[in-house]
């Protein structure tokens, strides 16, 4: 899968309360959640983020609570992929389970212009290209089991296949 979009840079330890504050958890609708994405740390973000945009963050993205509303809000906002130096584990598995593309990449994106620069991503190969400079970045490929989960469309489809085979 090839993804292309404008980037938004975030720092380290972006917690799930920052991604979607608990006061908005009385809905499970991705669209409603998206209206408050990152609101407490970047109040104008819901109005700025556009379909296909890419979130680029530092270490431990998605730490804190287990709320699946966090990746749902990101997906609901049309974000096509989250790239981070590392992910908190529950956020990581939630993203895979709901089919939100994520990539772990240790390279330094800090020089890029947030809200302006564009990246092109080849998910299968873990290749990331900065369109303005042509520079290439490499992300860690997914383990085989997770690639299978993703290619099936997430955990629900995986379980459906399991149930059908019984």
């Amino acid at each position, binding site marked *: 899968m090839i993804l292309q979009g404008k980037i938004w840079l975030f720092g380290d*330890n972006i*917690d799930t*309360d*920052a991604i979607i*504050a*608990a*006061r908005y*958890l*009385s*809905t*499970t609708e991705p669209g409603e959640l998206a209206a408050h994405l990152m*609101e*407490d*740390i970047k109040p104008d973000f819901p109005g700025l983020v556009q379909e296909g945009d890419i979130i680029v963050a530092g*270490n*431990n993205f998605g*730490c*804190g*609570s*287990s*709320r*699946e*509303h966090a*990746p*749902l809000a990101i997906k609901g906002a049309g974000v096509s992929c989250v790239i981070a130096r*590392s992910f*908190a*584990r*529950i956020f990581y*598995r*939630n993203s895979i*389970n*709901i089919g939100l593309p994520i990539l772990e990449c240790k390279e330094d994106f800090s020089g890029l212009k947030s809200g302006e620069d564009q990246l092109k991503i080849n998910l299968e190969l873990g290749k990331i290209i900065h369109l303005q400079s042509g520079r290439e970045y490499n992300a860690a490929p997914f*383990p085989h*089991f997770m690639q299978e989960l993703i290619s099936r469309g*997430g*955990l*629900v489809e*995986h*379980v*459906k296949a*399991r*149930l059908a085979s019984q």
Partner: protein
Amino acid sequence: MNNNFGMTMVEKILAAKAGKDKAVPGELVNVEVDLALGNDITAPVAIKEFKRFGLDRVFDSEKIVLVPDHFTPNKDIAAAEQALVLRRFAKEYGIKHYFEVGRMGIEHALLPEQGLVRPGMVIIGADSHTCTYGALGAFATGVGSTDLAAAMAIGEAWFKVPPTIRFEYNGQIPEWVSGKDLILLTIGKIGVEGARYRAMEFAGSAIDSLPMDGRLTMANMAIEAGGKCGYMQPDQITFDYLEGRVDRAYTSVYSDANASYESIHTFDVNNLEPQIAFPPSPDKVFPVSDAKGIELDQVVIGSCTNGRIDDLRAAASVIRGKKVKEGLRLLIIPATQHIYRQAIDEGLMADFIDAEAAVSTPTCGPCLGGHMGILAKGEKALATTNRNFVGRMGHPESEVYLSNPAVAAASAVAGSIVHPEEVLS
């Protein structure tokens, strides 16, 4: 089993539940789930996903626990609708362990209290603080709603076997210092991702003598260091706690003497001061003497971290016969109905009410900025809860400090952060 190959408690539990002789860190395993938990925030998403399977039954109606505890008693119409989703699902699918308001408690205080947690179990919960149950020698970890949906359907979950870090606490825990202080000290030392994807094994002479409530507090906050789980190996304190609660046999699992640990951290607790986590991160930890004088608008004593009977006893022993500082709100939230009743029987509630504290029915409420104690712009709170992220308890420009219950009670009397000895002397 090969004697040359030592395993940790978590590796053994995961191996056993995956039907294997051994499990090594990094390996992906599919394991049987003994208990799967959801609450009024996470279960509605799980139920929505579960319905996509088109099943008319869950894998085992006795192995699913549903607790409406976050936005309950229903804080508004939307919360009421979400709680209704749980209630209807529980009825439709015959879920045995559904706990209605009036019988419920904060999930991670409730499940151990109700005897639903036993050593050697694999427990997943769509709540990050599910790691609490490691204090009873179970492998317990937080997952998301879709994981819960899958487990409700097939009774299995996939895991990467985590490497284990061992934390040894040696010495005698000083007065007014508790499990909360040991775990804050630990998170302060290793950072919020210091145990990311790792199991945290808590051991040492200070743990050997730490009561169960303090152990539950420690395991509860493993997630604040990024941990997959945190655990103590079962001992007499565990067995005494389980006595009369669990209705079936269990097998305790122990780390081998030659188990491999990714690293080992040791702490001398003999001179440890109570610890405070400063906003906006649970790893910004300093001794209470460095926080002295920080003025407060609200103090919250409760949550899945510190709302148990030992916590209320510690708070009451400080506040008894004193008054909450004028202009400050003190909220006391016993974590379960049973703890609430016990606190009444022991006279602790009289101590709190006489001190002019507000006492609430069990709820997660203010801990996550849901309801029952939201902060206004610029307000500062000290809480016995587990997170102090930006906006965690209300307005994005409010601030939360974290402490143990005795420090919280003392600070409510003083109006600013103090060591309990300062209000008792």
